[in-house]
C-alpha cells in the first residue's frame, strides 16, 4: 500500500473534522441546557417533550380555573352564613312578636327591624365578586334582586369552569337559595324568603298572632333548613376543589420533573465528555503536526 502525504493529510483532516463536530454538538447541548434542540436530535423524545409542555400549560390553566372556582363558592358560602344569621335573628324577632302581650308600638318596632333585615337579605342576594353578581345565573352584570319591585331578574343557567381535563364543575347558586322558584318564567317569588319576611311584617302590623306563631315560623324554619342544605353543598364543592387543587400542584411537580428528565442534559457528564473530546483533539493535533512536517527534502544535502 502506497501512502502519500495527501493520504496522511486527508485522514488527519477528516478526524479533526469529526472531533470538531462532536465538540460542537456537546457545546450546543451545554449552552442550551437541553438535550433536544431540534426534532432530529431525538424524535421520540420530542413527542414526549411537546406533550409534557402542553400538559404543563394546561395544568397552569386548571390551577387558575380552580382558584377562581374556589373564590366563587367561598363567597357564596360566606353569604349563606350571613343569611343564616339574619334568618335566626328574624326568627327570634318573630317569636317575640308572636307573643300577644306586645302592644302596637312594640310590634311596629319589631316590624321595622325585620324590614331592615329584609333589606339586608336583599343586599346579600346582590352579592358580587369582582363586580359580577354571583346569584344571578348568567346574568352577572346586573343585580338579580330589585328591592323596589321585589322582582328577581336572574336566571338559573349554570356557570361551569373546567377544573381538570374534560371535567367541568358548576360554581354558582341561583335564586333557589332564597326560596325562589326558578322553574317558572318569570321566577316565582311567592315562596321566597322575601315573601316570608313581607308576610311576617304584614302579620306583625296586622296583629295576626296565630299566623305568626304557626305558618310564619314554619316557613322561616323551612328556609333555614334549605339554607343548611345549600351550605353543605357549598362546603362539599370547596372540599372537592381543594382536593383538585392539591392534585394539580402535585401534577405540576411531576410534569416538570418528567420534562427535565426528558430534555435536560446531565451537566457534569457533558462537561466531562467535552473535556475528553478536547483532549483527544489536542492529542491528534500534536501528533498530526509531528507527522506531516518532515519530508525527504529536509534530509538531502
Amino acid at each position, binding site marked *: 500500500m502506497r501512502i502519500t502525504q495527501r493520504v496522511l493529510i486527508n485522514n488527519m483532516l477528516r478526524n479533526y473534522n469529526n472531533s470538531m463536530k462532536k465538540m460542537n454538538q456537546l457545546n450546543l447541548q451545554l449552552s442550551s441546557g437541553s438535550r433536544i434542540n431540534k426534532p432530529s436530535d431525538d424524535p*421520540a423524545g420530542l413527542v414526549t417533550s411537546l406533550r409534557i409542555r402542553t400538559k404543563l400549560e*394546561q395544568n397552569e390553566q386548571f390551577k387558575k380555573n380552580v382558584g377562581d372556582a374556589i373564590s366563587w363558592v367561598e363567597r357564596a358560602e360566606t353569604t349563606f352564613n350571613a343569611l343564616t344569621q339574619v334568618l335566626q335573628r328574624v326568627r327570634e324577632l318573630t317569636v317575640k312578636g308572636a307573643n300577644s302581650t306586645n302592644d302596637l308600638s312594640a310590634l311596629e318596632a319589631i316590624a321595622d327591624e325585620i324590614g331592615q333585615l329584609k333589606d339586608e337579605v336583599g343586599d346579600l342576594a346582590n352579592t358580587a365578586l369582582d363586580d359580577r353578581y354571583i346569584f344571578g345565573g348568567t346574568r352577572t352584570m346586573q343585580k338579580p334582586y330589585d328591592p323596589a319591585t321585589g322582582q328577581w331578574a336572574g336566571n338559573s343557567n349554570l356557570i361551569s369552569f373546567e377544573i381538570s381535563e374534560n371535567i367541568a364543575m358548576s360554581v354558582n347558586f341561583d335564586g333557589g337559595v332564597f326560596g325562589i322558584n326558578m322553574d317558572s318564567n318569570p321566577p316565582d317569588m311567592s315562596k321566597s324568603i322575601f315573601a316570608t319576611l313581607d308576610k311576617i311584617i304584614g302579620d306583625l302590623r296586622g296583629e295576626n298572632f296565630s299566623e305568626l306563631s304557626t305558618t310564619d315560623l314554619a316557613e322561616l324554619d323551612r328556609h333555614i333548613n334549605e339554607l343548611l342544605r345549600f351550605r353543605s353543598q357549598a362546603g362539599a364543592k370547596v372540599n372537592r376543589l381543594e382536593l383538585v387543587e392539591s392534585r394539580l400542584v402535585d401534577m405540576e411537580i411531576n410534569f416538570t420533573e418528567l420534562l427535565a428528565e426528558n430534555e435536560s442534559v446531565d451537566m457534569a457528564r457533558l462537561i466531562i465528555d467535552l473535556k475528553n473530546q478536547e483532549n483527544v483533539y489536542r492529542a491528534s493535533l500534536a501528533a498530526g503536526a509531528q507527522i506531516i512536517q518532515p519530508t525527504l527534502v529536509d534530509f538531502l544535502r
Partner: protein
Amino acid sequence: MRTTFFGLNIGAKGLAAQQRALDITGHNIVNANTEGYTRQSVVLQSDYPIKTVNGFVGTGVKITDVQRMRDNYLDLQYRTENKAMGYWKFKDNTLQKIEVILNEPSNAGLRSTLDKFWAAWEDLSRTPESSAVRTTVIETGQAVVETFNHMDRQFRELRDDIDNSINVYIREINSIASQIRDLNYQIVKGEAEGPKANDLRDKRDLLLDQLSEIVDIEVVEDKRGSISVTIGGRALVSGNVVNQIYGKQDVNNDNLTKIIWADGTEVRIKSGLMKGMLESRDEIVVDFMAKLDKMAYSFATKLNESHSQGFHLLADTGFITENYQGITLGNKIDFTSSVTLNGTLNLKINGTTTSVSVDGTFNSADELADYLNGQLGAVNARVYNVDGAIKFVSDNAEIEIVHTGSPDDIAEDLGFYQNPGSGQYDVIVTKIPSFFVVTDKNSPFSAANIAINTNIKDNVNLITAASNPPYGGIENIKGDGGNALRIAQLKYDATTIEGTTLDDYYRSETSKLGIKAREANRMVENQGLVLSQLENKREMVMGVSLDEEMTNMIRFQHAYNSAARYITVVDEMLEILINGLGRVGR
C-alpha cells in the same frame, strides 16, 4: 567493426533519457497539490540491440512511455458513491432547514401559540363579561393565524430557493458538458499520434468527478480516447456533440422548473444532488405544506362549527325577548311525536326576499334543520338545531323572518313568533359570524388562507362565549361562558384531524420529520466515510509522494552524472584516436 562514434550515441541517449525523466519528476513534484493530478511515471527500456560479429549489442536507453498511474475501476467506484452523497447531502440540508422553520421544541413554535389560544378560551369561559379577556382571545388567535401564515410563507420560499438551485445546477451541468466536449476533441487530436494526453485526461476526469456528484452519469470511452457521458440513458456529451439540458416551467407543478432535453422529454434522473433537489422540492417540502394546510383546515372548520353554536352579546341577536300571552318563551318545536309541515317560509336575506318551501314529516329538530338547509340551496345561510329550537346562522348576512299572514305561511309553526301589535317582525338570529374566515374566497382553509373575521376583531362582543340563548335579553347571558368552555375543550376532540386531536397530529408529524432528518444525517455521515475511503485508495495509486519523487530525482541525477562522465571518457578516447593516431615518431 564498430562505428567510431557509437559510444557517444549511447551516452547522448542516456543524457536525454535521464533529463527527460528528471523533467517528469519535476512535473510530478510541482503538481503534488494539484487537484485531480495523476502522477506520471516514466518507463525506461533498453533500446533495440544490433547484431554484431560479437553478438547482440545494446544501443542504450529510451523512454518508451510516460504512464499515467490511474486506476479506472476506483474512479468508477468513486463516482457511483459520489452520487449517493450528493443526493443525501441535499436532503439533509433541506430537512435541517425545515427543522429551523418548525422551531420545536420551543416556546415560539406552533404548539406554544396553539396552547396559549386554548388557554385564552378557558379564561373566557370563566370571565365572559370581560372585554380584556375577549381581546386576549383575539390576540392569541391572531398569533396562531400569523404562525400558520408565516410557516407557509417560509416553506414557499424554501421551495423557490430549491428551484433556483436547480436552475443553477442545470447551467453547471451544461458548462461541464461543454468543457468535456472540448477536452474530448483535444485528447483525440493529441493522442492520434500515439502517446496519451495525460494532463488533458486529468482535467477531464476531474470534471467527471464533479459531474458525478450532481447527477447519476454513465461514462464510456471509445478507442480514440473520446468519452460519452449519458444521463438516464441519453447522451449528454458524445464525442464532439453536446446535448444540453434545459429548465422549463411546468404548469402542472406551480410553474416550477422541469428538467428536459432539447426535444422536450424529461431527463430521467435517479440520483445525485439533482435528484435530492427535485425530491426536496416536490416531495418533502410539499408534503409538509400539505400537512400544515390540513391542520389549518381542520382547526378552522372545527372552531367555526363550535363557534356558530354559541351566542354573542350584540343586542340585535334578535331572539324573542318577550313572553307573549303565556306562550312559553323560545322557538322550540315539540317533537314528542313527529311533526308534519306543509307550507312556505318567507325569509329576507340581506334585503332580498326568498321563499323556502317546507313539506314533509319530521321526527326531530335535526331532521328539520337538515331539510331546511337543503331547501336554502345557494343562499349563504345555515340552519342549526340548538336545543330543539331552529336557528338560522349566516356569516354577515341579515336574515329576517317575514310573516306574510297568508294561510301557508308556516313561520309560526317553525317557532318564529310574530310580535303582535308592534307590527314588527322578529329578526331571528342573524349575524353569528364565523371566527375564522378565508382570505381567498375561492379556496378552502389552508395555512396561507386563514384569518380572523374582521367583524369580530372590531367588536369582541361578537365572540360567542355563551351557550344559552339570550331569552329575556343579552343581560341574561353576559356571564355565560358555556360555549367558550366547549371551544376550549376542542383540544381534546379526537375527531379533529385524521382520527386524533390537533395536538397529537402535530406532534407525530414533527416527530416523523425528526426521524427523516436523522436518517438523512446518518446517511451523509456514512457516505462521507465510504467516499473518504475511496478517495484514499485513489490517492494511494495516483497521488504524488514527495519522498518518492525526491528519491527518483537523486536516482536520475546520478544516472545523468554517470552518463556525462561516460561521455567524457568516450570523448577522451576519441581525442586520442583523432589527435593521437598517426603521429608516430613526430
